[in-house]
Every structure is written in structure tokens, then in C-alpha cells.
């Protein structure tokens, strides 16, 4: 019809339609897998984007205020690393905006006018962040020191408000509000204020924001813990560790309080999700808190360690063990998570709470040492624990997102639209999925290699210069690297 005229056109068309037949695969699981994968990847970069700038500014402030050379070096190097992680975060975030449409066109087509609103504001904040991060990273040399410091502050603010905006969209999927439907179920009126400030927003946004500081803090601290374990006991490593670890340690207890509040919000507003979290088959009071364990296809719970009455008690301490918890079977099977999903949610919940508690204990150790000895714990075991704490914090956060996302199934808009009705009709999604996995695996590996390479060259060359590459050390380094190449 259109382009291909003649024989070549026929061949092209035939090949393409043959390909189409081969790739006819149900897009639902692939679209979900891809969204989950890209989000899980992106979310590791989020804490760095949100909280690293804050930690960099602490070091920067210390460096300027107390004329602390090590702190200033730290801030400069951190800003260079940040450039790399921010760049990767920016592009993986851009992919997500493509995916909303490519994977979930029916969802966006029907709900875009409501769900999309927070992203308008997120775009604003992201724009601000991108601009000031560029100024901050490139401004080390010529801007006046304090003026330069202040160009970093908008990065921190934009990170905070940007993540709140994104979480607002996710919270809206859990607590849809701010729209009017006509008899056919089409959105005919939108109240943007209610969309953004939906009921789930305060808890979810606080939980994610604190998570960003928690994970960012522990993750960066773990790098310096490893360095110190390898014998790099200089003041530079010490500062890097203490600034980051303190941020993480302060965030943990706050996060536990917020998490408790959010769980109770879920108890009141998304009983199916709560039933999945606590693995409660039938509605009852005196529900035990089962650690680990498994839900069978016939809705019996096997294995695990039940603590009598604790789930009921935690749900509402005022009524204690008499608190009634709604069971999974209280709603029709097509409106609750499947047994497999319940097991995923419950396991991830246990991981999140378990790891979170371990991080809390580590933070207590650190705090007690400061209170009583005026220094961080000296034993190698503390550093070993701190080295593990970074990856553990990432796993904790990922598990938390699995709880909230899988726990919402089968809904994409809670109570209004199911995932299967939102997905694209394009059957080639699985191809894109594999392309994305391969590409992201490469990008992820390379990011780590590049960051490590930068760190190695920073160490080799010693000081900080940006005589050549803005994202990394160089010039005197160049000579060093050349030696490295010839030698090794």
C-alpha cells in the first residue's frame, strides 16, 4: 500500500508479517516483567540522586567552613561520581516515561489525565535538578566557593520534591482520587489537588524519601567501609564513611516509625494487600504474625514461625488481639493477589522488616559507640557489617517496593482497572524485554566498572583536578593511567 512498491516491497512486507506471526506472545507477563525490571534498576539510582547531593553538601560545607581539605576533596570526588549515576538515572528514568505508553497504553489512555498530573510537577523538579547538577559539577573551578555551594542546594530540594511527585503518582494508583467518571467509566472531570494529595501520598512519600536517605547513606558508607577494611585508614576514607553512615543511621529509626504507620494505613485501606502481607487466608481476630512460612493452594499456611496475636495487635494496638484482620478469601478470587503473589509479598515483607531491623541494630551500635566513646566502633566486625549494610539496604528497599506493587495486584488502579486491561496489544513486548535486560545489564556493569575505575585513578593520582574530563580525574592522571597501561 504505502511505501514498498514492487518486488522488494513485497519481500519486506512478507518478512515483517512473518516475523509478526513468530513473535505472537501474550504481552501481559512480559510487560509486567519489563516494568518491574526497569523500575527495580532505576530505583537503585534514585537514592543516589536524592541523597548523595545532600551528603556532598555536608562535606562541601565542612570543607569550606573548617577549611578541611579532606572534606573538600571528598565533596569534589562525590560530585564527579554523582555525575555518572545521575546520567544513568536520567536515561533510565526517560525509558520509564516511554514505557508508560509503550507497555500500558490503555492505562494511560484512560487515566492519563489524572495519573499523569504529578509527573508534570516531577518534570519541573527534574529539570531544576538537571540544571543545577550541571552547574554544581562543572562549577568547581571558577565559581566562588560559597556561591558554588549554594548552587548545590537546589539539587537537594529538587530531589526531595521530585521524588514526592513520582510517589504521588504511585500513591494515586493505590488510593485513586480526584476524578469523576461518566456512566461508561470515562474520566470526565479531574481535581488535580486531590489527585496529587491522595490519601496514600503522605505515608508513601515519607517512606520513600527516608528510604532514599537510608539506602544512599548505607550504600556509600559501605564503599568506604570496604576501603577501610583494605587498610585505607586515612582521614579521607574516615570522613566518607562517617558522613554517609550517619545519614543512614539517622534515617533507620525514622523509617521504622513511618513504615509502621504505612502498614496501618494499608490495613485500613487496602485489606487485600494487608492480608497478603500477613498471609491471612480467612477473616479473623487474634491473627498471628507468621515469620516466613508458605501459603498453599488450598489456602492453608504451612511452615514458618507464628507469633500468636501479634499481627492483630500491631494492626490496632488499642483493640489488641481482638483486632479483626480481613482475610484473602473475603474478596472474589479475581480481585485479590494469586497464591503465588501472596507468597512473594509475604516473603518480601519478611525480608524488608528483617533487614530493616538488622540495619537498626547496626545503627544502634554506631550511636552507642558515639555516645559513650565519642568515636565510631573500632572493631573490624563493625566495618564488615557496615560493608554488607549497603547492599542489604538496597535489597530492603527493593523488597518494600515488591510488597506494595505485587500486593496491589490484580489492580493497576486500585478498585478501578486491572493490569490485564491496561497492557499494550503489541505482542512483541518480549523482544523489547530481552533487549532492555541485555542493555541494562551492560549499563549496570559498566557503571560499576567506571565508578571503580574513577576511584582507582583518583587514588593513584591523589588529588583532585579537572584538567581534562569533567566526569573523572585526569591530566596528571593521564600520565598515571598511561603508566598503568604500560605496566599492567
Amino acid at each position, binding site marked *: *500500500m*504505502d*511505501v514498498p512498491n514492487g518486488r522488494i516491497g513485497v519481500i519486506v512486507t512478507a518478512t*515483517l508479517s512473518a516475523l*509478526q506471526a513468530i513473535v505472537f506472545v501474550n504481552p501481559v507477563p512480559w510487560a509486567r516483567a519489563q516494568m518491574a525490571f526497569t523500575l527495580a534498576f532505576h530505583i537503585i539510582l534514585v537514592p543516589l540522586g536524592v541523597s548523595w547531593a545532600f551528603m556532598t553538601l555536608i562535606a562541601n560545607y565542612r570543607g569550606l567552613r573548617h577549611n578541611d*581539605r*579532606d572534606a*573538600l*576533596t571528598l565533596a*569534589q570526588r562525590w560530585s564527579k561520581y554523582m555525575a555518572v549515576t545521575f546520567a544513568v538515572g*536520567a536515561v533510565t528514568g*526517560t*525509558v520509564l*516515561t*516511554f514505557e*508508560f*505508553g*509503550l507497555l500500558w497504553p490503555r492505562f494511560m*489512555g*484512560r487515566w*492519563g489525565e*489524572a495519573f*499523569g*498530573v504529578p509527573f508534570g*510537577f516531577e518534570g*519541573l523538579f*527534574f*529539570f*531544576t535538578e538537571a*540544571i*543545577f547538577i*550541571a*552547574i554544581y559539577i*562543572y562549577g568547581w*573551578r*571558577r565559581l566562588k566557593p560559597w556561591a558554588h555551594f549554594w548552587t548545590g542546594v*537546589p539539587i537537594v530540594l529538587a530531589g526531595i520534591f521530585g521524588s514526592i511527585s513520582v510517589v504521588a503518582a504511585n500513591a494515586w494508583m493505590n488510593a485513586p482520587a480526584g*476524578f469523576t467518571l461518566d456512566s461508561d467509566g470515562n*474520566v*470526565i472531570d*479531574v481535581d*488535580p489537588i486531590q489527585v496529587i494529595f491522595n490519601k496514600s501520598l503522605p505515608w508513601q512519600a515519607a517512606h520513600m524519601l527516608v528510604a532514599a536517605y537510608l539506602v544512599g547513606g548505607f550504600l556509600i558508607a559501605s564503599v568506604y567501609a570496604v576501603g577501610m577494611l583494605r587498610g585505607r585508614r*586515612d582521614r*579521607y576514607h574516615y570522613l566518607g564513611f562517617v558522613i554517609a553512615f550517619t545519614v543512614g543511621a539517622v534515617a533507620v529509626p525514622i523509617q521504622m516509625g513511618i513504615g509502621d504507620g504505612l502498614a496501618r494505613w494499608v490495613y485500613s485501606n487496602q485489606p487485600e494487600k494487608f492480608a497478603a502481607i500477613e498471609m491471612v487466608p480467612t477473616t479473623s481476630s487474634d491473627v498471628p504474625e507468621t515469620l516466613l512460612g508458605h501459603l498453599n493452594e488450598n489456602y492453608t499456611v504451612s511452615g514458618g514461625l507464628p507469633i500468636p496475636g501479634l499481627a492483630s495487635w500491631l494492626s490496632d494496638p488499642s483493640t489488641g488481639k481482638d483486632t479483626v484482620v480481613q482475610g484473602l478469601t473475603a474478596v472474589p478470587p479475581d480481585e485479590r493477589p494469586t497464591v503465588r503473589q501472596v507468597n512473594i509479598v509475604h516473603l518480601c515483607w519478611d525480608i524488608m522488616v528483617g533487614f530493616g531491623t538488622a540495619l537498626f541494630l547496626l545503627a544502634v551500635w554506631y550511636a552507642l559507640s558515639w555516645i559513650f566513646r565519642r568515636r565510631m566502633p573500632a572493631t573490624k566486625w563493625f566495618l564488615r557489617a557496615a560493608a554488607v549494610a549497603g547492599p542489604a539496604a538496597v535489597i530492603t528497599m527493593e523488597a518494600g517496593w515488591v510488597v506494595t506493587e505485587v500486593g496491589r495486584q490484580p489492580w493497576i488502579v486500585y478498585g478501578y482497572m486491572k493490569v490485564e486491561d491496561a497492557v*499494550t496489544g*503489541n505482542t*512483541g513486548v518480549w523482544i523489547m524485554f530481552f533487549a532492555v535486560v541485555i542493555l541494562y545489564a551492560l*549499563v549496570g556493569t559498566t*557503571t560499576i566498572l567506571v565508578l571503580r575505575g*574513577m576511584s582507582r585513578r583518583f587514588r593513584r*593520582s*591523589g588529588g*583532585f583536578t*579537572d584538567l*581534562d*574530563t*569533567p*566526569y573523572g580525574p585526569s591530566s596528571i592522571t*593521564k600520565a598515571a593511567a598511561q603508566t598503568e*597501561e604500560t605496566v599492567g
Partner: protein
Amino acid sequence: MSTVIAVVLLLAVVAYAVFGGADFGAGFWDLTAGGAGQGEHPRDTIEHSIGPVWEANHVWLIFIFVILWTSFPEAYASITLTLFVPLAIAALGIVLRGASFAFRKAVVKLGHRRIFGAAFAASSVLVPYCLGAAAGGIASGRVPAGGQAGDPVHSWINPTSILSGVLAVAAAAYLASVYLVWEARRLDDTDMIEYFRRRAVIAAAAVGLIGIIGIFVLRADAPYLFQGLTSRALPLVIVGALCGVVALVLLIRNAPRGARLLAVVAVAITMIAWGDAQWPYILPESLTFAAAAAPSGTLTAMLIVVVLAALIVIPGFVLLFILDQKGLLPEEGVEDETDVDPAGLRTQAHKQSNQ
């Protein structure tokens, strides 16, 4: 109100084409700069010019999507369903491009730089082609209304899409070369001024040629758009073409200052002409902006975002550009060490490396 948002959408597309397009175009010149030795000099200039700003430029694309899915969700659903393939390729290309550009700067070994550089440059060409082809599919009326999927193949492999894809790559290369001439002048680099000026002339000629071919392609393949371009939007088309011609003349006469502005205006006006010709349809002849528009509450929220953007983001953006253009965000140091190193980091460093 949907008209206002439609205009904002068009302006965002223009901004992405003018700012982001130049970044893609720089990638095109990077790709064609030749081997490592021969291409080092131009690549340096390229890196110098796009380094500080490229991340900010990407946000235009995010803005376009956000405006589309909030304000015209039905059209957005149709577009993403129909144009799945080119948009998916563009998304992956953007990851590849952004990541490898950042990585290339962070690695030192030549071999590594080569790999990242190639990935960066190749994806810089692929992405604008795919986005251009997608735009061509929309402009030629191949995306149906109602959140429905159109033809998954012919919606982006068709004469108009090929035309607009190639045109996007050429226009990006053109803009970039004009910027790079200016950049080279700023650096006082005579070789590079001449190098990019020659390429700008070639690119300008290429864009002009594609434009002339485009007249025939559009007449046959996108009648609604063609009709709009030759009637209501005709004055804009003429102004755009004139700007392009004058810019070319200035380039040939080696007067790049005026050429830069005129080149930008030429591209911007041509794109505005496209929007004007397509009006009132977001998806030509099947869905108007008014019919696709979201409820007024959403549109109001988007207007507020736009106003805030004008108040917050534009000054920031201007600041970034001014600092960048004034050389206050340097990548290469020319000052002596005391300036670089207010706190005597070097000494400290030596201590560390000795440990």
C-alpha cells in the same frame, strides 16, 4: 484551553528539536569524524560543547510525553500502541547514548573510549531517525483515534516517515555543525571553525535538498499536511526557507554569528509550520486537539506547571547556558595550580598516595 496546551506542546517539541537536536547532531559529527587520531580534534570540540548541558536537554522529551499523556491521553495511547517499534528503539537508543557518553568521559584507555564513543555516536543517529519517523507516521495520518493500534509496520515505514526521519537526522547535524562553528570561534580554534563550517554548508544543502524532495513526498503521501503547508502555513514555510537560505549564505561567507541564530529560527519556524498545517488535528483527520483534550482540571494543572516552568526552569536554564557560554563551567583548565587547588589538595593527595 486545549489550544493553549497544544501550543505549549508544539513549543516543547520545537525546544527539543533545537536544543536536544543539536546534541544528537553533535553525535552525528562524532560518528563521522574518522579514526581516533584524525577525529580527536573535532571530538574534543564536540565534547566541550555538549558536556554540561546534555542532561538538561533530555528533559524536553520528558515534558513532551507528560503533556501528551496528561492533556491528550487518547492520542498518547494511540501513538504508543501504533508506533511501538520506533519508540522502543528510540528509548533503548537514549539509554545507550546517554550512558555511553557519560562513560566515555569517565574512562581513559583509548580502546574503552572507542567502544563508548561508537555506541554514543551510532545511537545519536538512530534516535532522531526513529523519533522523526514516528512524527512522520503521525503527520501523515497513520495513527488512528480512540486509543487504537494502527498498522504496526507501515505506520513508521512509509514515505513520509522516511522523509521526516532523514530530515530529523540532517537537521540535527545541521544545527550541531552551526553551533560547533560558534563553539570553535569561542575557543579561537581556526582549524575547527573551518572544519565545522564546511560541514555546516554541506548539511544545510542536504536539509534543503531533502526539503525539496519532501514537497513531492508529502503531496503524494500526506495530503492533509501538504494542503496545510501550502495554504495556511505557507507564510511560515516561506519565512523558514528564507532564513535557511540566508543562514547558508552567511555560512559560505564565513559569518557564523548571524548564521547560528538564523539556523535555529529556520528549524523552529519550519516545525511551527508543521504544527500549523496539522491544526486542528493532533492525529490528522481522525482526532482533533479539542476532542482529545483531558478535563479542564488537568489542563489547568498543566498550565500551572508551564507557568512555574517559565518562572523557575527557564531562568535556571538561561543561567546554565550563560555560565556555559561564558566559559565559567570549564572542562579544561588553563589556570595554574593555586587556582585549581584552593585548599592545597595536591599536597594532601601526595600524602594519601604515599600511604
